[in-house]
C-alpha cells in the first residue's frame, strides 16, 4: 500500500462560482487540472480550452466503415458468391444496397459515438482516487469541484492550496492515490 499524492481538491457551491474560479486557475497557469460537476456547465469548455471533441471522428469512421462493408457484403452474397436473380433486376446495383447500408450506417455511427466517448474519457474504470473522498460524493449531487493534479509543474501543496482558497474554494483537501 503505497500512497501517492494525486492532487488538491476544492469545493464550490454553484456553477457560476466554479466557472469564475476555473478562469482564475487557468490564468494562474496550471495545466493538469479538472472541474467535476453534476451536469455539464455551459461555457466550461471555453474556460478549460477544449477544442471540438473527437467523438465525431470515431462516429464517422464507424459509420462509413459499416456503410461500405454492407455494400460489399451485398455484392459478395447476392452477386458474387451465389448470384441471385430477383424480379429480373441486375445482380448488383448501388441503389439497391442503400437501405440496409444506411441502416447499418446508423448502427455504426451510434456504436462509434459510444466507443469514442469511452475511449476518449478512458472509461470504464473501476476506481478513481477521487472516489475515496467522502465529500466527493456530492460531485454528482449539488457541489462543484476543482482538482489540481500533483503532476502539474506548478503544483505545490502550499501555494496551490492558497490559490484554491483565494478563489473561493471550500473544504480544500489533499487527494491521495492508493495503489
Amino acid at each position, binding site marked *: 500500500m503505497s500512497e501517492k499524492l494525486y492532487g488538491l481538491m476544492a469545493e464550490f457551491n*454553484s456553477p457560476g462560482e466554479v466557472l469564475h474560479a476555473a478562469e482564475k486557475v487557468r490564468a494562474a497557469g496550471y495545466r493538469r487540472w479538472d472541474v467535476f460537476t453534476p451536469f455539464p456547465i455551459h461555457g466550461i469548455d471555453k474556460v478549460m480550452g477544449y477544442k471540438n471533441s473527437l467523438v465525431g471522428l470515431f462516429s464517422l469512421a464507424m459509420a462509413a466503415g459499416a456503410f461500405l462493408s454492407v455494400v460489399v457484403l451485398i455484392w459478395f452474397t447476392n452477386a458474387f458468391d451465389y448470384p441471385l436473380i430477383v424480379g429480373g433486376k441486375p445482380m448488383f446495383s448501388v441503389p439497391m444496397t442503400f437501405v440496409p447500408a444506411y441502416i447499418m450506417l446508423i448502427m455504426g455511427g451510434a456504436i462509434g459515438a459510444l466507443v469514442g466517448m469511452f475511449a476518449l474519457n478512458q472509461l470504464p474504470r473501476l476506481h478513481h482516487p477521487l472516489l475515496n473522498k467522502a465529500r466527493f460524493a456530492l460531485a454528482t449531487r449539488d457541489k462543484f469541484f476543482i482538482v489540481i493534479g500533483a503532476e502539474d509543474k506548478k503544483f505545490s501543496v502550499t501555494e496551490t492550496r492558497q490559490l484554491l482558497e483565494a478563489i473561493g474554494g471550500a473544504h480544500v483537501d489533499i487527494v491521495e492515490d492508493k495503489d
Partner: protein
Amino acid sequence: MADSVTNLEELKKLAPPAELRRAPVVEGNPSLGALTDKLSEFAEGKTPRWWWILFLPAAFAATVIFPTCLFYQVFTGVGVWGNNHPVMWGLDIVNFIWWVGVAHAGTLISALLFLTRQHWRTTIGRMAEAMTVFSVMMAGLYPAIHVGRAWFDWFMFPVPNSNGLWPQFKSPLMWDVFAVNTYLMVSTLFWYMGLIPDLALMRDRSKTRVRKFLYGLFALGWTGSARHWHNYEKAYVILCGLCTLLVFTVSSIVGLDFCTAQLAGWHATIFPLYFVIGAVFCGFGMVLVILIPLRKWCGLEKIITMSHMDKIAKLTLVSGLIIAYIYLMEFFIAWYSGDPYEKWVFGHRLFGHTYWVLGWMLIGINVCVTQLLWFKKIRSNLAALFVIGLLINVGMWCERFVIVVGSLYQDFLPANWGKYMPTIWDIGLYIGTLGAFFMLYLLFVKFLPMIAIAEVKGVTPHGDPHHPLGGAQKGDRQ
C-alpha cells in the same frame, strides 16, 4: 453573494410580462440538492403498494401466459394462430407494427426534441426512451416467431451456412431485420448512455454495499469531469441525430413491406410516411397513458408539470391531424385512381363485412376524438388525457388491423376470399407481450432513475452559470 442578489433584482425588472414568460421546466424553483433528493426518492424509497398491485399481474402475464403461448405456438406451428389462407398476416403483424409504433414517440421525444433544444423534454425523455427500448423488444419478437420455424431465424442474418445460401437483400422484409435490430441496439445504447451520470449519482447516494456495487459497476467509474462531459455531450448529440434518423427509417421500412406488394389497399406510395406518423401518434398515446398515472403516484407533479402535459397533448394533436389527412388522401386516391379493386377495398373498410366496426373505430377515434385536444380544458384535464391516450392506442391498433387484414381477406379473386379471426393463442401472446412490457417498465421505474436527473438539473436556474441563482456575478452576460 450580495452582487448576485442585486443582480436578481435587476433581472426581475428586465423580465417580460407574466403572460409572455415561458413556463419553468421545474415548478417551485428547488435548489439542486432538493431536486436531486426529489428525483431519486422513488428508486431509493420503500416500494409502494400500487407498484405491487400493477407488478404482480404484469409479471404473471409475462412469466406464465407469455411463455405458454409462445412455446405452444413454436412447438405446434403457426397454425395455432388464426392465420390461414388468404389472411397470412394476422395479429402477429398487427401487433408488430403496433409495438414499433409505440416505440417511435419515445425516440421522437428524447432525440428530436433534444436537437430542437426543447428543455422540457429533459423531464420526460428518460421515461419515453425506456418505453422505446421495451416496446422494440416486444415488436422484434413477433416477426421472429411468425416465420414459423423460429429455430431457423439465423438464416435471416448473413451467416455462412451449409446450404451455401445468403439472405436476399432486395426484399423490404430483409431490411426489416436490419431496421428492427438496429433500432433495438441504438435505442438501448442511447438510453444507457443517458443513464451513466445518473447511475453515478445513485452510486454516490446508495447506503448499502450491494446497491453501491451494482450502481457503481454500471456507472463505469463516472466522475463528472468537465473533459468527460465535453466528450459525452458530443456523443449525445450524435446519438440524438442518429436516433432521429431511425424514427423516420424504421417505420418507413415497415411501410415498404406493405407498399411493395401489389395488393389493393397496400400498394400506395404514401405508406412509408403513413406508418411513421401513425407510429408517432400511437406512441404519444402510450406516453400519455404511462406518464399521467406515474407522475401522480410518484409525486412528480412539480417536475412533469401541466405545461409539459399540454405540450405532449399538442404534439399528439399535430400527429393526429396528419393522420386524418392521410386517411383522407387514401380514400381520395382510391376513388381517383379509378381502380375497381382499390375502390372495393376502401368501400369495404367502412361498409364491408365483419371488420367494418374496426374501420369506423379508426375514424371515430383517430380522427374525431383527437379533435378534442384543440380545447385547453381537455388538455388540462388529466383524466380526459389519459382516456384519450388509451383510446388512441386502441384506435391505432384498429388501424393496423384494418390495413393488414382488411386488404388480405378479399383480394382480386372472389374464389380466394376468406375470413380471419384471432384465436386464443393470438390474444394470449398479445396479453403476454403487454405484461412483459409493463413488467419491464415497472422494474425500470423502481430500480433506475426514471427522470434524467443530471439533465433536469442543468436546465434549472440553479444550474445555469449565467443566472444569478446559478452564481452568476454582476457584469456576467446573462
